[in-house]
């Protein structure tokens, strides 16, 4: 813009405005063209590149590797695995499905928590409210219930597969133990959830279950050597579990906290260890080449 032209009267200003608006229009057109190009190829935008560090559009081995390694959700995977390890017949997919069900349960569980009060007055009414008034409430509760049952089954089958393929053997012995703990946690999670609707089914199932705690040796008031050690219904292990001598409001609150906070947290920690160890112990165990009896190395003398 020429400074000398300034202040020469109205015609000059008009001319200038027209000129500038023309330039602006051209610039806008140009940028819109660029935006159009971006929409066609969003991978080239700054926004896209800031989120996805690795270009995905070209499937070079390097990109495929980085796609897994540079992604926080996928990084527990190795970049490449044995060509036969992806076969369904080997793993049955049960470990992965168990983990997916845990995610489904966490998701539906959090949604259910929005509608639930762990108190004797409210709990049962909240379930009725969920079933009859909350949009998709019944579906939500059903999914949580059936996912929990399914997870118990998939965890058992996962363990079954690990035994059949001998995957617990060296160097995976410790990870098997972590898996056993996860199995116990799965059952406990399911069991603590049983009481929460506060209906007859849950109440009596938990009553039956926790009554066994009375008979715990040494620390139950009906167990061997319990009475001799001063155990009564008011100080034994069952009292600690229920927060009282009967299944009542304290038991409901305790079941709720175990179910929604303590046990999922523990399970998540052990799952982290479990998956980490799968990688550190050399990935999934097979399908490995078969070993022959004639190739057994002689016994190591200790």
């Amino acid at each position, binding site marked *: 813009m020429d400074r000398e032209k300034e202040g020469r009267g109205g015609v000059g200003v008009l001319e200038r405005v027209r000129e500038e608006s023309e330039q602006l229009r051209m610039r806008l057109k140009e940028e819109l063209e660029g935006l159009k190009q971006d929409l066609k190829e969003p991978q080239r935008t700054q926004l896209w590149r800031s989120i996805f560090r690795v270009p995905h559009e070209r499937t070079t081995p390097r990109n*495929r590797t980085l796609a*897994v390694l540079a992604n926080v959700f*996928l990084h527990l995977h190795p*970049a*490449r*695995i*044995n*060509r*036969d390890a*992806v*076969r369904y*017949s080997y793993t049955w*997919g049960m470990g992965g*499905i168990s983990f997916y069900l845990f995610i489904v349960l966490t998701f539906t569980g959090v949604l259910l928590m929005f509608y639930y009060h762990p108190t004797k007055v409210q709990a049962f009414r909240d379930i009725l409210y969920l079933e009859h008034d909350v949009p998709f409430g019944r579906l939500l*509760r059903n999914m949580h219930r*059936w996912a929990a*049952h*399914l997870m*118990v*089954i998939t965890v058992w*089958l996962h363990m*079954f597969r690990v*035994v*059949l*393929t*001998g995957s*617990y*053997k*060296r160097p995976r012995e410790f990870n*098997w*133990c972590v898996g056993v703990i996860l199995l116990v946690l799965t*059952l406990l999670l*399911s069991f603590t959830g049983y009481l929460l609707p506060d*209906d*007859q*089914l849950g109440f009596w*199932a938990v009553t*039956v*279950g926790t009554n*066994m*705690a009375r*008979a*715990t*040796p040494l620390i139950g008031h009906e*167990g*061997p*050597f319990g009475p001799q050690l001063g155990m009564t219904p008011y100080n034994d292990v069952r009292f600690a579990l229920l927060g009282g001598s*009967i*299944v009542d409001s304290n038991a409901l609150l305790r079941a709720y906290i175990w179910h929604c906070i303590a046990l999922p947290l523990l399970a998540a920690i052990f799952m982290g260890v479990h998956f980490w160890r799968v990688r550190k112990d050399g990935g999934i165990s*097979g*399908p*490995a*080449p*078969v*070993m*022959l*009896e*004639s190739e*057994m190395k002689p*016994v190591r003398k200790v």
Partner: protein
Amino acid sequence: MDWYQLWQIISAPDNVPIVGLLVIVPFYTWYGLRQARANDRLIQELEANPELAKTHHRKTFPYRPGWPTEVHVWPYLLRIEFLAAIIVTALLMVWSLTLDAPLEEPANPNLTPNPSKAPWYFVGLQEMLVYFDPWFAGVVLPTLIIIGLMAFPYVDANPLGNGYYTWRQRTVAIGSFLIGFYLWIALIIVGTLMRGPGWMLFWPGQTWDHTRLVYEVNRNLPDLFGITSDWGKGIFGLFAVVLFYLAAGFGLHKLVTRSPLNRKIYERTSLVQYLIFQFFAITILVGLPAKILLRLLFRIKYVWITPWFNI
């Protein structure tokens, strides 16, 4: 046959997983053992032909020299995981749309349902209460099962069968686990389908009779031998249990050292490993069924009676 009642038990939404297990567990057993048989055949072939063993890729899956031994996780594994997630979600959706989670009347401590049952995955433990006192069935036995499972890899000294399906190379390990796994599931099925009011045994399809009385009187083993004093019962029971462990241990030992391969594996097993294996195998895999049979066939309640605990 009371088909209506049978249908009511089977179709109870919470019992669906048990009916599922009746199909799923045999299927996956077959699925695993079929691959074990294929591998066993390959092993036999390679064992007979050392030249082939040197060059063979040692799997039943197709492989040609030059094929890559590894594949990229992206996309070859991730697409399977994605597909599995979609299938499981769809299955859950259909299941949740067609079957409602049970909800009974509000909890009422004054109204005890008969029978009142634990959640299905713990019904096996509840069923064991018939055969053992609560301290054993409900506390000690589950603890032993968990510890036994954890000890499993440490007492299995067999180096064969690491990472592939096989039966012949691992008969003892797989056999033990299968017995335990099936026992657990059998107890769940009996507890769910065959236990009616008062936890009495009703065959599937037999009408639950709330007024049924059982005139069988349970007996204790010492009574059969006419032992009456407390000291006598205690010592007799201890003697009986020790004798059982010795006899079962001897029988198990004969069984697990029968084949030449199993003898070789036995030689690699340290004494501590072997005794731990024997203890858990006798207690859980032999003792439990033995006590069930004693009870069901001879109506024997306790074997060992002491002032503090009874077994």
